């Protein structure tokens, strides 16, 4: 059963249509990431789920119980949602302990063992319980905010770009801790983010949002390898998109004849090649190195095909990266998805 079910959600602010018929199902105990560029409507979606705003149309149900629909609108405080906003938003006048127990009934607010359990669950030292939010690091604040959201046993946990204010190293650690805590409690969660790495690495399902619609909802690997269209392809990771001609399960394009993922009607198509699929070597299509960005663990190499000048980006493991101006040959590893040409 789905813990969360959205049907045909629409929302406008004045003349701007922000959400345009969003359908989404989140299975119980799983984490779904809603991924999209800023302004695509993903934060609005989260606010509608939390009950801070009302949709213009559509239905929302938690565990099969409608919280928004014709004649129903359960207010935020009765929806049993856990909300983790950007930068945590811990209550600055309360200790971490008082923050975490804020949503519990009055008689349960001073239960030591439960508090320790929540702190341990999110990977916080029990000693921080007596501290105030400003005495904690950003990552610790985020973990405390998650513990606060989980403590009243919510039906759904909503996370609004919870890691965007953390620096890179902390972001990964905190993300993993959050994932572990959600798994341990069996909580159903929706994470909103614009960071595809975060979405792909943390979520069970990724929903890609564009112009107020969810254009694809699938497991991370499918979203990456078999994106619904060229737009999703270039938003989820680096993408080289080339025109090609499909016949059967082989597509002919500037990088040669490539095997496709599945097949489709023969004719003109767009081919998606991920930069890490491109092999620099002595075999294949001739190309010249134009620019190299070296990151240490790997490098991004921009090339031009000779003689057409078509621009190609390849990602190679660090070490032995070619100098700009070098002539070499390109081949493609693995199968490639194709999209009907528009």
């Amino acid at each position, binding site marked *: 059963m789905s813990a969360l079910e959205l049907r045909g959600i629409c929302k406008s602010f004045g003349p701007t249509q922000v959400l345009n018929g969003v359908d989404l199902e989140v299975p119980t105990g799983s984490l779904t990431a809603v991924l999209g560029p800023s302004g695509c409507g993903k934060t609005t979606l989260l606010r509608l789920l939390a009950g801070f705003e009302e949709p213009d149309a559509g239905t929302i149900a938690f565990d099969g119980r409608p919280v928004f629909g014709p004649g129903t609108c359960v207010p935020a405080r009765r929806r049993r949602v856990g909300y983790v906003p950007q930068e945590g938003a811990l209550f600055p006048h309360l200790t971490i302990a008082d923050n975490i127990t*804020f949503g519990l009934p009055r008689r349960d607010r001073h239960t030591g063992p439960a508090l320790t359990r929540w702190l341990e669950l999110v990977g916080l030292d029990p000693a921080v319980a007596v501290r105030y939010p400003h005495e904690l690091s950003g990552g610790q604040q985020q973990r405390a905010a998650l513990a606060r959201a989980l403590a*009243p046993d919510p039906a759904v946990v*909503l996370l609004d770009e919870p890691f965007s204010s953390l620096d890179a190293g902390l972001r990964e650690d905190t993300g993993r801790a959050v994932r572990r805590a959600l798994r341990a409690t069996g909580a159903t969660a929706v994470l909103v983010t614009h960071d595809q790495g975060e979405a792909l690495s943390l979520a069970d399902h990724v929903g890609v949002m564009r112009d107020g619609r969810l254009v694809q909802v699938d497991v991370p690997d499918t979203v990456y390898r078999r994106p619904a269209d060229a737009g999703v392809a270039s938003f989820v990771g680096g993408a080289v998109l080339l025109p090609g001609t499909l016949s059967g399960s082989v597509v002919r394009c500037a990088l040669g004849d490539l095997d496709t993922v599945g097949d489709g009607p023969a004719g003109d198509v767009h081919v998606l090649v991920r930069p890490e699929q491109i092999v620099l070597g002595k075999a294949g299509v001739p190309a010249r190195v134009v620019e190299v960005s070296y990151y240490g663990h790997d490098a991004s190499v921009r090339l031009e095909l000779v003689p057409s000048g078509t621009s190609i980006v390849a990602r190679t493991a660090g070490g032995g990266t070619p100098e700009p101006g070098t002539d070499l040959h390109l081949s493609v590893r693995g199968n490639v998805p194709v999209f009907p040409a528009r």
Partner: protein
Amino acid sequence: MLYIAVDMVGVGRVEALDLIVRPRVGELLRNTVLLTTTGMLTSAVLGTALAWVVERTTLPARGAWTALLAAPLVVPAFVTSFGWVSLLPSVASPWGALLVVTLAYYPLVFLPVAATLRGLDPALEETAEALGLSGAASFARVVLPQLRPALLGGSLLVGLHLLSEFGALQLLRVDTFTTAIYDQYTSSFSGPASSTLAAVLLLLCLLLLLAELRLRGARRYAKVGGGTARSVRRRPLGRAVAPVLTALAGVVVLGLGVPLGSLARWLAVGSPDGFPTRPLATAALSSVALGVAAAVLVTVLALPVALLAVRHRSRLTSTLERTTYLATALPGIVVALALVSFSLQVLEPLYQTTALLLAAYAVLYLPRAVVSLRAAVSQASPVLDDVAHTLGAGPWATTWRVVLPLAAPGLRVGAALVFLGVVTELTATLLLAPLGTSTLATQFWAESSQIEYAAAAPYAALMVLVSAPATFLLTRDVRRANAL
């Protein structure tokens, strides 16, 4: 305000015109405008110069100087004026008045300008210097524009205070609208005549307020972009240290030393006969009681205004807020007159009751409380409300458990401001206090206006003592900032 207008109508157009257009009003107008503008100017110059020295040079013992230079605020202007007049009777002249009011009111400019200078990103000045501007040019072209809101706001406060100042100017024998209204009212109980003068005074206050709004404009002075401001590089005083210290000491001696010294002298002179303990205690008690009652009342009234203004922005709430802001321009004497005529005409039993006096305090001090509460409430980000709602807290629970605790410092500051204002309030109290009720301020006034300086001094001393805890509360933030 409405009652002043109604009274004017009652006077009749022709008569009112006669009352306004007469030589006496012309003279009052000249006195008032002259004193207000020169007083604002000298306070602005002195306040800004002192703030710059304290915040931007390597002045020794800066924290102590900040406290000392802000301290004249604790002493009500009429006590400062009493100190000067009782020591040096010849100060009772227009020039003397300018000196005394400047010394009493420059901290109203000094404090906000110093705070702005402290918060100013030094990178702005460094950039200006990197672009080839000299120190003086960078002050004029970069720092001064940034100081504009603080400077204008502080000067506006000085101007409004001067327009409504009564005690200090009466002692200094300078006639302005406020003193004339009081004389008119007490000598002849001439309602229409005093109402006409009050209407002109009100007009001046509104003009000042509008001028400030106009000058401030809609420009943004916020810092653009992120990054943390570094601490400022201070200008070494070098050989100027001795003259600067002398000048600062001079200001402190003139503004604080003279009033307090002369107060102490009169206390010593008066003590051989012993102090009249009973009247002193009664007056102190009623001052404190009125102060506390007004502080509670005004804070309770201000809270919904501030909450609505910050959390539920709409045309109605911003109008409501602006109305209270307009009320900052209301001189005590105008409010008192309006309430007198209101109670006499509509609710006779209210005349000369504590309730009416408290109502006057509420009108006078609501704006102060709203301003400090508003700032405190907007500290509590709306996302905290959202989080509280998802955790099951309703609107009341959220206000009680989240917003109010966060706004508590502002609440305390607002209450302290009201308490301070009420304890040192003179004009409205003189006009509205129930018969037989005397406060420290009115008793002081009764004695000092009969040139019983020695008898007046203990009341003033007690007044300063009673307001000390509230002042301590108010300056705590400033002192903390300096200690860092």
